[in-house]
């Protein structure tokens, strides 16, 4: 009987270890994706609200933080999953710089916005005004939602 119990314990532990390993790997992959989605959503939502309500310094910080996070996610995923969010964020940054009269920084931000927009929609080249109009339209829609 002693042997039976020892064999049972070994079999149980082995089964548990194998199941635990695969379950942890699956859970970790799912949570990594969830964290990536979550961090981009949280920083984007925050930067939209700061853009609407905060002073230029705080709004700029929020948008720059969003841009940094999105660019890190782009690098991590080796893809262009965030190019739409990035052109919108850079357009917002350009609008903030314009309102603070930092025209050189605004020009540089809009140039970045155009680059990301090109990656998001190859072949389309809207004007700066159309891009800003688009961002304002998205913000109004988000506000109503």
């Amino acid at each position, binding site marked *: *009987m002693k042997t*039976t*119990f020892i*064999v*049972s*314990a*070994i*079999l*149980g*532990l*082995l*089964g*548990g*270890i194998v*199941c*635990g*390993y695969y*379950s*942890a*790997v699956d*859970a*970790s*992959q799912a*949570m*990594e994706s*969830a*964290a*990536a989605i*979550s*961090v981009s*959503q*949280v*920083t984007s*939502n*925050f930067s939209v*609200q*700061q853009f609407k*309500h*905060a*002073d230029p*310094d*705080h*709004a700029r*910080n*929020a948008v720059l*933080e969003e841009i940094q*996070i999105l660019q*890190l*996610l782009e*690098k*991590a995923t*080796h893809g262009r999953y965030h190019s739409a969010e990035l052109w919108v964020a850079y357009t917002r940054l350009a609008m903030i710089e314009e309102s603070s009269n930092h025209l050189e920084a605004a020009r540089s931000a809009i140039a970045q916005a155009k680059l990301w927009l090109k990656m998001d929609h190859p072949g389309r080249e809207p004007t700066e005004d159309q891009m800003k109009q688009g961002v304002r339209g998205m913000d109004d829609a988000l506000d109503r939602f």
Partner: protein
Amino acid sequence: MKYPLITGFCGGLLIVAGCTYIGYRGTAAIVYRQKQSTWFNSLEKHDADRLRQTGQMALAYSLSALSIQNTTLSLDKSIQTLVKIRSTAPQELWPVLDLRMAKDYATLGRLEEQAGDPAGAAGHRQRAADLLRSIGWQTVSNEVLVRLADKELGSRLKN
């Protein structure tokens, strides 16, 4: 022993179940922690660490926001959770958490106003206003706070 075969079988079964559970929980916890430390590993170490930490906190924040209901009890609990998350969150996320807390305080104030508790409402609105000013909001009037609270009360999704 009266029934050695039955005793051996049942005992073995219990041991298998117990050891499977222990092996599963222990391995899952150890492997998950180890795998978690490799999230975003295709980035440089500094960037991966930053994204990992911010990602985990953002996830905790998003999950806590999902359970907020329009009751004083739920909002109080949400504020406590946010304070806890803020104590370990990277500094870049503090303004995000402060905005969420400000919204919760403004909503608490609105609920208390509706319940006929003007003193409690004024206290919570003051906290909301202080937090909003700290994150650079330019206009923090009573109307802004009421609008913010009403929007929160009308929305199922808090973000």
